């Protein structure tokens, strides 16, 4: 059954040779979790350093390396592989086909992602070695110019960062092209665009965002390399270059990247909520339209990261307004999820618990987002802990909670066994409490003036209690994660057998065995509605009679 029950050499060989989308998907998920632990350890170190004033747990340069690597890892080596892994695993089964459009390109995408991760972490071995923390990148995950210029970033740390992101970008563009081709060209008979599961729709939108937003990142990495190695002058202000141009180019990628990460979260929630409310999703076409709108608008809001660099007030107004506009389709989505739950028969299983937590937390994240999009407010709070709190509410409270929902929801399909419910509840509550304890006080610390990326602070600023609470929260979160990881391993061997369709769900992945056979379906299915399994289970009252 599961690939892991083989002897290790055979397993390694099988994984290295495989072009199967399911194995590649699980490899993405597995390596994403490993990087998640690494970045998590760095987060704990950062919080230990900041727990009390005037702390000397880390030295300043190690602190810089840790927040840089934490951010870079979480975005490129945790967020991206987890969402691409889920898409890789689920999209072909959900549209009723046997594999991705280009299986070998798919394997290429995974291996180059893994290579980029190794390349980034290899930097820890350079320079002053493992004990001196080496020469890991220390310029922040945005690598603002001229911090990255040869003069200010000596050695090779920034080169590791640049080349790693360049490689990772190529991998995700390859995977995105593959996803688009798969979704539009390999759907099974009857799977029209308006019958595709929302998960598939949203991943198509994400893939489009990736092919539009990742190349700008690659472009600015190339420019940075040329600057550092061949003496080009792109970001060299002393030779007429512009440091602001880096910010524009980086955020032209960086803002859509937020939506590349959060739209898959919407995708997961849109699958979980209907199944656990026993109701079809409310307003399917509007959900699709809202997703496309979000993606489209997200390409035109990048400069809201730059209100304080001194753009003209016309640009500030434009980017402020366009950012506000994103709240409209996002609000529509939140209403539709609530509309789906309203009057439904809610089953409070773990995937739904995580989804409901997601709704509240993402709402807070959205509201603080609108606050920060207000230019004068941003002038006050730019680069303060308020911003840190905001984007952790988006990425942890939004993306990570939905990824946990996805793990509890699809683990039975991938492994054939259920995740343990009791451990799952411990994980949920510990992580929920820890998350709010860590990040909620950061809003207040930001308003009290605590800047981002500071390595230590004096005792007389009124930031002590907030920081201490925040650091205590991390202990709760780490314990929750530990229980989750133990659960993943424990249930792999001891979990209750899942059967093909443990949640009584509606999409095609539940029509095949758990875990699915090599070719997904013996006979390719044919669908007549957006809920093919409902039609199958209720032949007297099928969906297609109603629409």
């Amino acid at each position: 059954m599961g690939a892991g029950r083989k002897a290790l050499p055979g397993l390694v060989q099988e994984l290295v040779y495989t072009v199967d989308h399911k194995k590649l998907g699980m490899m993405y998920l597995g390596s994403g979790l490993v990087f998640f632990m690494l970045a998590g350890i760095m987060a704990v170190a950062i919080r230990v350093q900041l727990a009390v004033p005037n702390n000397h747990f880390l030295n300043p340069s190690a602190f810089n390396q840790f927040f840089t690597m934490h951010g870079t890892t979480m975005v490129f080596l945790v967020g991206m592989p987890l969402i691409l892994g889920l898409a890789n695993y689920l999209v072909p089964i959900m549209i009723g086909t046997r594999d991705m459009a280009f299986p070998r390109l798919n394997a290429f995408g995974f291996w180059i992602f893994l290579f980029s991760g190794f390349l980034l972490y290899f930097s820890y071995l350079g320079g002053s070695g493992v004990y001196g923390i080496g020469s890991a990148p220390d310029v922040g995950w945005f690598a603002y110019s001229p911090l990255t210029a040869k003069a200010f970033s000596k050695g090779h740390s920034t080169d590791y960062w640049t080349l790693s992101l360049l490689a990772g970008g190529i991998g995700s563009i390859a995977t995105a092209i593959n996803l688009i081709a798969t979704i539009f060209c390999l759907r099974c008979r009857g799977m029209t665009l308006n019958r595709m599961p929302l998960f598939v729709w949203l991943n198509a939108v994400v893939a489009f965002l990736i092919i539009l937003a990742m190349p700008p990142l690659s472009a600015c990495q190339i420019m940075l390399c040329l600057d550092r190695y061949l003496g080009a002058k792109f970001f060299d202000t002393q030779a007429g270059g512009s440091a602001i141009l880096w910010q524009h180019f980086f955020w032209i990628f960086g803002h859509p990247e937020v939506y590349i990460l959060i739209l898959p979260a919407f995708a997961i929630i849109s699958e979980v909520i209907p199944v656990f409310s026993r109701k079809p999703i409310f307003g399917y076409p509007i959900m699709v339209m809202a997703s496309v709108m979000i993606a489209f608008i997200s390409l035109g809001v990048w400069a809201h990261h730059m209100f304080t660099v001194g753009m003209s007030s016309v640009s500030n107004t434009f980017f402020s307004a366009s950012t506000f506009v994103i709240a409209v389709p996002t609000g529509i989505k939140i209403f539709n999820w609530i509309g789906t739950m309203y009057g439904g028969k809610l089953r409070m299983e773990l995937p739904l618990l995580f989804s409901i937590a997601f709704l509240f937390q993402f709402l807070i994240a959205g509201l603080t987002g609108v606050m920060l999009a207000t230019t004068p407010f941003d002038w006050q709070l730019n680069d303060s802990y308020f911003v840190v709190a905001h984007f952790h509410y988006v990425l942890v409270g939004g993306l990570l909670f939905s990824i946990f929902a996805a793990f509890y929801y699809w683990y039975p399909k991938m492994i054939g066994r259920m995740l343990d419910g009791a451990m799952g509840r411990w994980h949920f509550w510990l992580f929920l409490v820890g998350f709010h304890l860590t990040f909620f006080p950061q809003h207040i610390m930001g308003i009290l003036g605590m800047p981002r990326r500071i390595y230590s602070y004096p005792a007389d600023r009124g930031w002590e209690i907030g920081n201490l609470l925040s650091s205590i929260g991390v202990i709760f979160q780490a314990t929750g994660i530990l229980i989750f990881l133990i659960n993943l391993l424990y249930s792999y061997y001891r979990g209750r057998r899942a059967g093909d369709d443990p949640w009584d769900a509606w999409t095609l992945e539940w029509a095949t065995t758990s875990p699915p056979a090599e070719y997904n379906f013996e006979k390719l299915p044919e669908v007549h509605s957006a809920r093919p399994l409902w039609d199958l289970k209720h032949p007297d009252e099928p969906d297609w009679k109603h629409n």
Partner: protein
Amino acid sequence: MSDDGPGGASSPATEWKLPSVRKVAMISLITAESALFCIFLVAYAFYIGKSLNPPSPKEILEWPILASIALLSSSGTIVFAEKALYGGRLARFHCWWLVTILLGMTFLGYTAREWYEFIHHRHFTLATNVFGSTFYSLIGLHVSHVIAGLVLLLLVFAMSLVGKVRAEHHEHVEMVSWYWHFVDIVWVVVFVVVYVIGR
């Protein structure tokens, strides 16, 4: 699944047709490549006239008329080649394909000569000023695409010489030609930005 009801668009009478995987993937690739070119073009346009030291584009650039004619006409010859292949006239296909390759190489040769002249005789390099940085990176990006295109063209040519390309492969060949058209269209934009607006 049950097919006893009116399954909407998928009722047995209607045929289930989906777009070609190759075409969709090539369009996506071209979209991604366009995004890449956009950034380099914006950088070039942004830095026009911002160099602090000479040379300026006016002093050094000459209009690459012949090279442009060669590259643009190769977009036509590749269409003739495609049509010949579609009709199964392989000899004709070979001819037009070879002409396309030669035209592409003409373009490449011109750029090589231009760069040799700039670097060797005028000592104008990537590191000279921001004009140099943006010029070499933008033209270099385009030329690298021309080279990639030429490699594809040569591959198809070599495979067709040993009889591996036949009329039924016209879609594969069409994809190569789409890529080549893309390289051409990018050149039109690059030409306008660098040699017309930039001067």
